[in-house]
């Protein structure tokens, strides 16, 4: 576990080094983490919304089929 945390830490360092310019208070870690997570959480959010819309679309088709048969 220590090893994987060390690895993650190094990944964070590589990603963030290019953006280091100005001083920020102890919230730096929280600020940087959000920038790192931006693409991940943004994509998950879009995928989730797409999936919800797809499901409701399919549900709409099937419920229409059923009411047509009735």
């Amino acid at each position: 576990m220590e090893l994987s945390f060390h690895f993650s830490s190094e990944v964070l360092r590589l990603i963030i080094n290019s953006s280091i310019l100005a001083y920020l208070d102890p919230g730096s870690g929280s600020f940087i983490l959000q920038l790192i997570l931006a693409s991940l959480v943004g994509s998950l959010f879009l995928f989730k919304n797409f999936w919800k819309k797809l499901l409701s679309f399919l549900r709409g088709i099937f419920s229409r089929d059923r009411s047509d048969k009735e």
Partner: protein
Amino acid sequence: MAPEKPKTQDSPLGASFRDPSGFLYLSAGRLLRQVNMAYQENYDRLMTSGLYQELVNQGLLIPHVESDHTGMRPEIAYKVLEPETIRFISYPYEWSFSQFKDAALLTLLIQKLALEFGMSLKDSSVYNIQFHQGRPVLVDSLSFEINPQGGPWVAYRQFCQHFLAPLSLMAYRDIRLIQLLKAHIDGLPLDLTSKLLPFKTRLKLPLLLHIHLHALSQRRFSSAVVDTRRTMGKVALLGLLDSLETGVNALRWKPGGTEWANYYCDTNYAPEALEHKKSLVSEYLDRISPGIVWDLGANVGVFSRLASERGIFTVAFDIDPAAVERNYLSCKRRSETHLLPLVQDLSNPSSNLGWRSNERASLIDRGPADAIMALALIHHLAISNNVPLDSLAGFFRDLAKWMIIEFVPKSDSQVQRLLASREDIFSAYTQENFERVFSTCFRIQRKSAIRSSERWLYLMEALPLE
């Protein structure tokens, strides 16, 4: 000419000193909020964008009216607001699990709404949430700032420390860890939370990201320099909020068979005794018509509801988080607006905490109530906790003018149960001595034997302090 009355002194609230946007103060018994000129632009946007109205319409933010008071520091004042009164200020270490979870979800919902109006929460302190008319509400109307572009969310760290960390510890480790908030007044440190959480929480994506990696990131970049102009898009910010919401929603706590949660199913009360006790409590309440009642040792609130259903605002305290959880869930289900269940250990009541011991008020400082109910309680304090009767009487007198109290004699099976595992050193615990000792602090107005039991119910009025 009559002598001029001395001008009432305004006093700032102990917890309201950090935010340069404004502060709360008391003026002639009214709670007012000064909005400083530094916050003018943000306040105007809150009010004119429609966000304030939307939040108030949905019952998410405490409503306020603009007052004509000049402010406590008029030289920097932009406006003075008078918010609707919260009947009892509670703190997160007094909430049940679901109260805490609802407060977290409320904060995220408000942040999402704020983004729709081009604003954002600039702080997400758990202490900005209070329970009002049965529901959590945001009480700090100066928490918003104009934010047209998206993230990063400046209150992200605070949200994780104030909400996600304590909730995840309660759900995955132990409900009692909520008490850590008393030691860490600005929320739980994420490195500590990460250490205390079990390994399996690393397999839950929201907790992996927002607790474990967050703690790691804080450690790694504690003294880093970073370009604060860097931004993340609105979709990314919505994704972050969605991820936090998913994480909070997934947290569950199911109370097990704790000590008192099954009390009313597992007691020596005969149905007739229970009904008679209810009718006596109702009679006493009608006689004194209190405005605020504190029910001490309320369990799931059976007797608290005798007061709250009469329209009396009632705080139902109990030591057992499971009983308080059940009580809160009942309140929610029935949309009760006059009952507030809270966790409170009366052998160690909430004390003054924070900067200059003045940010969070003790239980006693939040009183007095008009009346307290101490039903089936004193044997726990006097026998389980060895509190002498005179000390108990003094404590109760500090809390309210009126008291409805039940005396449970030693011969009662519940007391026998407490004595089974300890030496009986309580020779002073007799009904005669109880009346004698309590008469030094109270006047006994009524006393009645509860039918089909050996217990007695008293209505007492506090004697004026000499």
